[in-house]
């Protein structure tokens, strides 16, 4: 759990994960609280927990649970799209508490199963190669799923671009027609007006 960042006591920090369908996403986190007396981050803060909320692309809340200061959460995506993982502490202290902040260590893994290192340590050489091969096969499946998802997104991209293209053409024609018809109406209207005023 190496990478960390700082956050306010009641602040919600969110991470976006764009994943294909049927993908397992595993998150590991550890949170520490800043102690203003000791001027350092406490190793363990009893009572400190984190609300983990995962929102699916359909705006449905997939996961919303309170975990302790250290925890692992996971979810499997059923729809392809952007999943938003939000972390917020359950601290009840007021935000005005000066100098208070949280250190959040975070590690998110997409589409990978934790590699079982202990099974590999077995002396059986055939077993070791077999396990590595299984891991590789799983990775290839993930690549294939991502490519499928990519195909859908590229199609959406292409549709948007073609829509823009036809929009531009359509609106240019409409504007030209409006310009011509309004111009004709202007001249006609003014001519009739001047004739009625006996100026012409």
């Amino acid at each position, binding site marked *: 759990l*190496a990478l*960390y960042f700082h956050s306010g006591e009641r602040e919600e920090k969110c991470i976006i*994960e764009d994943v294909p369908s049927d993908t397992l996403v595993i998150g590991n986190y550890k949170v520490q609280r800043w102690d203003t007396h000791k001027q350092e981050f406490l190793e363990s803060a009893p009572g400190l927990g984190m609300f983990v909320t995962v929102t699916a692309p359909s705006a449905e809340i997939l996961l919303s649970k309170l975990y302790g200061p250290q925890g692992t959460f996971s979810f499997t995506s059923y729809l392809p799209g952007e999943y938003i993982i939000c972390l917020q502490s359950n601290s009840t202290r007021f935000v005005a508490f000066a100098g208070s902040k949280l250190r959040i260590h975070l590690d998110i893994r997409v589409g990978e199963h934790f590699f079982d290192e202990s099974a590999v340590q077995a002396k059986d050489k055939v077993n070791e190669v077999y396990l590595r091969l299984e891991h590789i096969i799983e990775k290839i499946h993930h690549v294939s799923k991502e490519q499928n998802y990519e195909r859908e997104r590229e199609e959406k991209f292409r549709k948007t671009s073609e829509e*823009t293209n036809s*929009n531009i053409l359509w609106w240019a024609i409409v504007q030209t027609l409006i310009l011509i018809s*309004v111009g004709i109406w202007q001249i006609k209207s003014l001519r009739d007006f001047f004739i009625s005023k006996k100026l012409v």
Partner: protein
Amino acid sequence: MPLRGSWAAGPWGSLAPLLLVALATSAARASEITFELPDNAKQCFYEEIAQGTKCTLEFQVITGGHYDVDCRLEDPDGIVLYKEMKKQYDSFTFTASRNGTYKFCFSNEFSTFTHKTVYFDFQVGEDPPLFPSENRVTALTQMESACVSIHEALKSVIDYQTHFRLREAQGRSRAEDLNTRVAYWSIGEAIILLVVSIGQVFLLKSFFSDKRTTTTRVGS
């Protein structure tokens, strides 16, 4: 992991700290995170890195405004290793010159109202070998070396796939922006055109209809 003061006498004593360094640096970690950076905000990430580790920081802006962000990487002493303003995409490799906590920050402080979605990938150290050579007496078998080549090829496939996914996301975001902009501006222009043209005629008519300002041109 203090390594000073543990030098033992004798020729083998000096190997122990070196082994520790080797083990520490062989712990490869890669973190990739996509997050939203609100306007006028700065987000910093920290990581503890051992000396001599080769690290790579790669980032890309996916959505928002001009698709650019400020990035800054500092070593534990506060020396700036990398600093770029308003960059869309970049990749920076460095070797850690000393132990400590390295910090890198993304800043959107120059933007007044656009949120940016930033992706970064921070790779620390090299990946450990697939078949570690500690308890090995023979060379890698054909199966094992085939595994190793497939693993390496897969790593670069996944790397390219991620890059492509991000570029496509950025392109799609631009296309959607363009589409909404074209729609709004076209409707706006058509309305302005109508309003101004019709307004002109009525304004002109009103100049001649006003009894007070009747000029002597009429009838002379």
